[in-house]
């Protein structure tokens, strides 16, 4: 007799099933957050309107959405490369900070009279990207080496390394790189080092283009290159990877390197495109929000850009909402995290097959049909 919810052997993994359950999770998250809005005496529909209107219906707001989206997307891409290789790297806050520091330091070196002096923007940008990518890559790569050779937990080590990096940043902006004055921040970086603005009338900068390029590159890597195949196999089953001749230790370190580099690029983009100076608190938790973006994009590089823009937009909208409806912007944290948790819960739903027919059929004939004759796989192996 077929039951209403019948457990499957493996989860339904068609793109439709995955997208469907994600969308369902988002909707439920929004419904739950509505209750929160109500407790503030606000109308949920108005609140959601405020949340989405500013970033997606106004040009200015959309520009800001793109600005917020760029570092999120880069961090999400870093998450995807490392997590799909089996390395649960969580140190993106640290990489972000280091990337920002490297780029700012380089930029200060191009001030007139400084070591390099003014450089052509294209040259400077290339240099900044390369240097910060390597800086972040090495920072994360160390964690990869520790995991591959010593077996240390990359989860906790990368989490704590974040704090070390943040302290280094605080040291830099209070000491060697500090601008005159009492604020823990640097001088404004030379205009020539700023990322070009791409949407007139807004603050949207070329960082989003860099993020899009990175998304394409990550997709190509994972889908189209033998190295990507090896990373993915390593992520699924390290033992099988070894037996297939893949050098697992090297792949893990490489995955960490790429992840760290992408995380550092996020910091570079933020400092050269948006903040134009290095300061304490420049990261603001973006390292973790970026991971959430990756999770909502289901670790798929193609979905990262739209998801990041959605999130960037929501954080812009949340500020607007706070101004207009006095609802604290931290509500977005609640909305985001609820969405991910619901996605995780909904993943379990994909393990079940819904049989609406069970609601009205009482027949028992379904039982006999399912039994295969002869050879048996699965259960007894």
């Amino acid at each position, binding site marked *: 007799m077929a039951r209403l919810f019948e*457990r*499957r*052997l*493996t989860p339904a993994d068609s793109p439709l099933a995955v997208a469907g359950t994600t969308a369902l999770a988002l909707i439920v998250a929004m419904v739950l957050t509505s209750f929160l809005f109500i407790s503030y005496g606000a109308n949920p529909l108005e609140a959601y309107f405020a949340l989405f209107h500013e970033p997606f219906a106004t040009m200015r707001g959309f520009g800001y959405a793109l600005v917020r989206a760029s570092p999120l997307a880069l961090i999400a891409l870093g998450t995807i490369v490392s997590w799909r290789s089996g390395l649960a790297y969580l140190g993106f806050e640290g990489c972000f900070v280091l990337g920002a520091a490297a780029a700012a330091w380089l930029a200060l070196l191009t001030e007139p009279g400084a070591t390099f002096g003014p450089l052509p923007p294209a040259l400077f940008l290339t240099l900044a990207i390369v240097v910060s990518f390597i800086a972040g890559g090495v920072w994360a790569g160390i964690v990869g080496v520790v995991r591959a050779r010593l077996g240390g937990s990359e989860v906790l080590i990368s989490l704590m390394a974040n704090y070390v990096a943040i302290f280094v940043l605080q040291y830099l902006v209070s000491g060697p790189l500090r601008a005159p004055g009492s604020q823990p921040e640097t001088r404004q970086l030379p205009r020539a080092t700023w990322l070009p603005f791409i949407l007139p009338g807004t603050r949207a900068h070329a960082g989003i283009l860099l993020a899009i390029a990175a998304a394409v590159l990550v997709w*190509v890597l994972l889908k*189209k*290159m*033998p190295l990507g*195949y*090896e990373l*993915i*196999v390593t992520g*699924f*089953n390290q*033992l*099988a*990877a*070894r*037996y*297939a*001749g*893949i*050098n697992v230790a090297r792949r893990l370190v490489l995955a960490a390197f790429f992840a760290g580099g992408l995380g550092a690029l996020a910091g570079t983009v933020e400092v050269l495109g948006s903040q134009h100076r290095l300061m304490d608190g420049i990261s603001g938790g973006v390292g973790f929000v970026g991971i959430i973006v990756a999770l909502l994009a289901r670790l798929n590089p193609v979905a990262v850009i739209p998801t990041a823009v959605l999130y960037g937009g929501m954080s812009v909208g949340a500020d607007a909402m706070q101004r207009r409806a006095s609802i604290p912007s931290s509500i977005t944290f609640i909305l985001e995290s609820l969405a991910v948790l619901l996605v995780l819960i909904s993943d379990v739903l994909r393990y079940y097959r819904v049989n609406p027919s069970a609601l009205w059929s009482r027949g028992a004939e379904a*039982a006999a049909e*399912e*039994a*295969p*004759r*002869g*050879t*048996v*796989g*699965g*259960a*007894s*192996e």
Partner: protein
Amino acid sequence: MKRTLEMKNIVKRFPGVLANDRANLTIQAGEIHALLGENGAGKSTLMQILYGFHRMDSGEILIDGARIHLASPRDAIALGIGMVHQEFMLVRPFSVVENTILGLRESGSPRLDLRKASQKLKSLSDRHGLALDPHAEVQSLPIGVQQRVEILKLLYRDARLLILDEPTAVLTKQEKDQLFAVLRGLRAEGRSILLVTHKLNEIMEIADRVTVMRDGKSVATRAVATTSERELTRMMVGRDVNFRTEKSPWRRGEPLLQVSDLRVFDNKGREKVRGVTLEVRAGEILGIAGVDGNGQSHLAEAIMHLRDVKSGRVLLNGADVTNLSVARHHAAGLAYIPADRRHVGSVTEMSVADNAILGLQRKHTRGIFRSGGAARAAAATLVERFGVRGSGIDHAAGKLSGGNLQKLILGREIMRGAKVLIVEQPTRGLDVGAVESVWRELLRERQEGKAILLISAELEELLNLADRIAVMFEGRIMGVVEPTAASAEAIGAMMAGVPAASASRHLEISAEEEAHGEAL
């Protein structure tokens, strides 16, 4: 008091599989009852139900005519039913006594009283001839002793029915004899033993009655004294099985693989391969016989350099490959098909197509990019040629049945173009049809001049396929013999540690010695 346990019309379904199809089983007190069937016949599932691990879909279980309800192992334990699983249920860092009292609350107090438990354990172990040290850490004990711990756990709870699932799979001959002596003692006490096995000779040796299962059903129950191995085989398999293969004559070519004086240690610093020397020639299958755990896996892994070699050399076609990476081994023409097809030989989450090129990802390329087309074509060819039946090459490899998965892995390694194949336990867990396919493939490769190192715990397999059989025991090659009907005895002796010279003497000795109960 006479106690009878009956399982009637048990039905159990798993997703996609009907494991028990109205199975029946009756056990009397004071008997050793064997449950015989091939892999996949449903014996393990039936036992899991009896032990409360799984719930049956329908059917009833009666003790002395009264229905009992088994919702969990706790209920089974309370009713005096105990089980020793094939994979021991022991917590490795715990001591023997800690493992024994796990889950038991004898006094009302939450405190552990290890001292009292140790005393009780010691007296039990002395009484039943199962000597061991209660405070020893389980992971330091040899497998045979670990099994004793498992049995003592049951006796500690005064189990009246002991279920043993394939207990001799990991034992040497002496350990098996000791186990059987213990079982006879337990039977004399009025306890019942349910022996789940597929080893016919052991059933004939120790059991009183035997129930044969096939395809989830109970086919028949017989008293052992009134039946024969042949009849049991026929009932188990459903037809007369003639395990005889057509093997072309042995054409010995050049030695392709040479291993000289190989020494390998495991992660804990124990020597697992103690100076093994062997060679495999083109067009030959060299079998390695031995009970699992005598260094065969370590040998295979060391040859492929998946494991470090302490000393000794591995030569492929004369070239020293001892310390080269696995990828280089592949490139040089060595391929390895490991024993665990689901967790090591393949990546079950990936598609069949992706698994078909595992290790070959750098071959099917166009410039620096993977060539999806070439890869899929290779996968399609593989599936066609090796008869891999499943839902399609884009579906997860995990959905394939054991036999088809094995064919996929075998096909992949063969199509690599390797000249030397190391194959480990290729037909474990496969049904008869799949076994025949795999054997046919291996013989075909042999015909084409490949050198094959076949590691197997199934003597039947080696006798059929191998041109020569080397026996490994505790990391050493005890001897190399040619597969004849008579040498099966010698091989058995060597598997238990008797060196070749005495073993071949055993070849000449007739059944008289056996009748005198001469232990070796």
